[in-house]
């Protein structure tokens, strides 16, 4: 089974990065502060995570800072998986 960080990274690359962008996105690449994912689009990313991992992420924890890298996102998801 694929690791969570790989699944999340693949989703972000598929949905937010154009094929011919000269961008190398890794698990520690800034997403929000770099502008790859904007604050409005965070909502669809949050919904993806909630559905994929059957969790509920409280709005006050789904902040731009908490979503700024795949590593941070994985930490947040794991916290709510209990």
């Amino acid at each position, binding site marked *: 089974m694929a690791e969570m960080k790989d699944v999340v990274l693949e989703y972000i690359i598929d*949905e937010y990065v154009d094929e011919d962008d000269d961008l190398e996105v890794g698990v520690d690449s800034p997403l929000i502060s770099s502008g790859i994912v904007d*604050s409005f689009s965070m909502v669809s990313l949050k919904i993806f995570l909630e559905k994929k991992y059957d969790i509920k992420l409280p709005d006050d924890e789904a902040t731009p800072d908490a979503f700024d890298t795949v590593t941070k996102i994985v930490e947040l998801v794991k916290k709510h998986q209990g």
Partner: protein
Amino acid sequence: MSNIRSYEERLKGFDWSVSREVLGWTEGELLNIGHMCSDRICANGGADRTALIWEGFGGKKQTYTFDDLRVHSNAFAKLLQDQGLEPGDRICIFMDKIPSLYFSFLGILKMGGIAQPLFSAFGDESLEVRLDSAGTRAILTTQKHVKKVRKILDRLPELKHIIVVEGNEAKLKDGEVFFDVEAAPRVEEFDSFRAEPESPSVLHYTSGTTGQPKGAMHVHSSVWGQVLTASWVLDLRPDDIYWCTADPGWVTGTSYGIIGPWALGITQCVLDSGFTSKRWYEFIQDNRVTVWYSAPTAIRSLMRDGEDLVRAHDLSTLRHLASVGEPLNAEAVIWSEKAYGLPFHDTFWQTETGAMMIVNYPGMPIKPGSMGKPFPGIGAGLLDLETQEPVDEPGKVGLIAFRPGWPSMFRRYWKKPDIYRSKFAGAADDAMPDELRTDESLWYVSGDRASVDKDGYWWFVGRDDDVINTGGHLVGPFEIESALVEHEAIAEAAAIGKPDDVNMEVVKAVVTLNPGFEPSGDLELSIMNFIRKRLSPLAMPQEIEYVEKLPKTRSGKILRRYLRALEWGEEVGDLSTLEDD
């Protein structure tokens, strides 16, 4: 002492010519915004003054003087002229907030073109609608965004020039021109277009309830409104470091992110990276920002991150704060005074008004949550919701309206005279834009509702139509619904605003599905991403509700106001036109 000194005193015998005095303007000078924001500042001794401090993601930082601004905008003006573009041509700017956006904006105006800035997060469909409507002849973009232009180029016969200003030249396609202004030869001299006061300058697209977005056209003499409000409301002074957080794809980003401050010779900062509270505070601290013009959505996000983060930064250079885009709630005003030691001053205006209309002034007591008072020279009134007759009873809700004739007023909707006429209460059926914009017996009706208290303070109530104000940006339901029904699963759709703590409203879609499709989490995500890519992240529904049937009038029109009332827990009103089951 603030620039405005006393609001009450300024009201007495007000005349817009005071704006010329603020600039030290003499009759016979060239009235061209591009020239006024660069050459004129240099000619008056400001050539070496810093015009732009720009920071991008990853520590990139550049600083430009007003002389750099002059030379680089000259280069863009010459390039466009050399490409065969002419005064009056619509030239789109479609890029992130990189320095070339600012240089090219002034360059377009210098060669007499009409600048059409568009938000770079727009998807290809949003872009196509706006370029097609304007009959845009050229687009300035970057390698990052040119792909969206290529996708729609075949359907835009009037678009003849694609100019890529940043990226890898080797990746361009046939017919595209690459232009790196900082690598190009300096253009020391450019004979700027001799604009008349009514020469078109900027075309900003704005959304309405019905139909596709409309292009609100502004003119070079708008500068008088933008300069005076920048001076009296933003209180800009020669030694300020000013930060307007708006993107020039929207009107705030041009009126107060380019024109007003630079015509005054003020140093501006631009941050071109994603939002985090920490990054914003670092930016203010590092650049010693003194005046900050932002938006309620951002302010509420900063509130969420708390005062400890504020205290972790040195923000002591800040001396004046203002806000625009949507009503600033009282809590945010009170919080900012506590957190920063300064209240945010709310300002109300629109794409169509081109400059601030009802505002809170430096030095005037703020009633938290109020829009403030009308700017001197602005004939503001409230009209009865039904009769459109003026109302002057304190506390009574009416439509916000303005007497035509202020300098920065939009002069028309591009090729849509009927829609322009429909915005004026009391207009004759055959009145044309030039009559409407000068007839002070009419009212320009803004589409927003408010009340006025006994002290003359205005209080925002809400929109008078179905337009969704999300994060300070107006999004048209029609445009979203048109895109929604292009999704293979959706049969019919309504787009409405739903309440949101940070963005005031976000988009919610209420849809019926085609046979063979069932509601599911995957479908919800598919619809969201479909709209995000086609239109923009702002237009992306943040919630999707599946219904068996949408409420409609007997004539088959979807009743958005009914859905909206249910969403907001409001009275649903008269349902006599509702279709029977």
